[in-house]
């Protein structure tokens, strides 16, 4: 365990999941704390200022969004990686919009989860194929509905960003995408971060309407 290994807090209401994750990643990162609800999570994160928080999207008393908002009010450098079994796109998008740097499903393998944690720690965005699909879905309605000339830059994905997302949804890793599109890995990362920023900063009506429509569905 090198001093550089990121310090991690696991927030999940299922003890089995926390124990399992701890066992899988514990050799490579320092798990400094665990929490099973919002209040506990905020307290633990305040106490330890971890580098990365593995954050369950659904918690007994609310959603991961509330944890992120409570913690970021005190502004730390802590980064959040959303983890969930949930397929509900609007919940996932909601947590990412609140500030999570990525989203993975709980069925992710140990090494992949570790990789995702390290990447989030490095400031990268982590898009599981599913999140990439959700984002494409969320931004697709507006592309045809809003005239491109008037739309805010934040409200639209560039063709290149779309291409990167499509490859992510197809299961490509950053390295493979770089080779496919003949760009550097750094550029792929930049595109992914840009998509994340747009997702978080856009207050586009289409995005909320999309979420609302999903909810009714």
């Amino acid at each position, binding site marked *: 365990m090198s001093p550089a290994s990121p310090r991690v807090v696991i927030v999940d209401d299922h003890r089995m999941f926390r124990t399992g994750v701890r066992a899988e990643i514990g050799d490579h990162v320092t798990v400094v704390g665990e929490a099973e609800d919002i209040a506990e999570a905020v307290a633990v994160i305040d106490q330890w200022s971890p580098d990365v928080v593995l954050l369950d999207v659904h918690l007994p008393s609310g959603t991961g969004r509330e944890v992120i908002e409570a913690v970021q009010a005190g502004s730390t450098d802590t980064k959040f990686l959303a983890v969930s*079994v949930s*397929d*509900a796109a609007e919940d996932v998008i909601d947590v990412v919009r609140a500030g999570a740097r990525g989203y993975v499903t709980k*069925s992710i393998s140990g090494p992949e989860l570790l990789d995702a944690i390290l990447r989030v720690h490095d400031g990268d965005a982590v898009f599981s*194929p*599913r999140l*990439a*699909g959700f984002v*494409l*879905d969320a931004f*697709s*309605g507006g592309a*045809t509905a809003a005239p491109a000339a008037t739309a805010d830059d934040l409200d639209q994905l560039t063709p290149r960003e779309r291409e990167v997302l*499509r490859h992510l*949804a*197809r*299961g*490509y890793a950053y390295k493979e995408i770089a080779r496919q599109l003949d760009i550097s890995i750094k550029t792929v990362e930049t595109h992914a971060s840009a998509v994340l920023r747009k997702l978080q900063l856009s207050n586009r009506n289409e995005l909320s309407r999309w979420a609302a429509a999903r909810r009714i569905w």
Partner: protein
Amino acid sequence: MTSDWRARIPPRSNTDRVVGGVSAGIAQAINLDPILVRLAFIVLTFGGPGIPAYAVAWLVMPEDPRSGAADDDARSPIELRRGVGLVLIVLGAVLGLREIGLTPPDAIVWPILLVGAGVGIVLWQVQPSLEFSRWASARIAAGIIVVGLGLAAFVAGNISLGAVRDSLFGTVLVVGGLALLVGPWMVVLMRDRADERRRRQQSDARADVAAHLHDSVLQTFALMQRTDDPREMSALARQQERELRRWLYADVVDPGQWTLKTAVERTTGVVEDRHDVTVETVVVGDASIDTAVEALVAATGEAATNAAKWSGCDSVSVFVEVTDDEVQSFVRDTGVGFDRGEIAEDRLGVKESIVGRMERIGGRAEIITAPGEGTEVRLAVPLPTGTVGA
């Protein structure tokens, strides 16, 4: 039994009502100004069966389901208007009676009105749970009026040594009035019972789901304990997970209403079950099913099956996207790949089920692979008409 015919009857208005919202409800249904309907009722009251007609309409018309909290805030002025309306109706009825020759002396009218009002207030106190304030006051008043009319007619008949006909008429009115007074409680009781039955059915349905879930989850756990094969264990867990998801996220779609999305998810689910792999499935946009889309879904399943069988990895990615003019599908694995030149003629799986199928329906199929490089199958068909939504 109640729902089918009641559904076609316009509801009483919650927001616009003087007495019970009947007029506004009717007005809305036939697209008239409520004032006109109210006038019609008033004319009917003096010239015919206005009050009974109103009472019957009131009974028959369901409550507007769109009642909201805002209704409560607007209650008091409505209460006031309703009170004024009631007084006017009662006065009108009395005057009307005098006009048509029945002249009940004040000694009878006022006691009856007072007793009626007293009874109403008492009942109001006793039965608050029956939404009394909301609507029953109008009917109470109507009932009291009719009882009063009946008694008046009866008395008038007796005083004038009237015929049996008048007495009968009076009796009918009294009975009718009592029915109006008691009827609402009966109706409310019946409605409550219907409500209760519906609630019980709902909770039964929920219990069914819960029982089904618990049963299948327990079965899965039992099976998992009895197997030593980790692959089988994860296959069981995956299957259970998918089933739970389907229940929880209401993905229980009637096959007749399948769309591209449900069809793809169903197909990749079958591949997961049969071949013991994870198929990470992402569908962006949706489309209705036509022959081409059906072929695309089938070819996607075939490609995923091939990947599961031959790639050597335990995870396959499927990405389906509806673009402006076509439906594209990508099936990818990071496994061993193969040399396209060496595909034997007998690898019919690829040649027939995928490439051939796509070409026959005017689509495209492309296979990108090399030994050690994984495999990606790219498919596309033209977008069907009547897309569900992008």
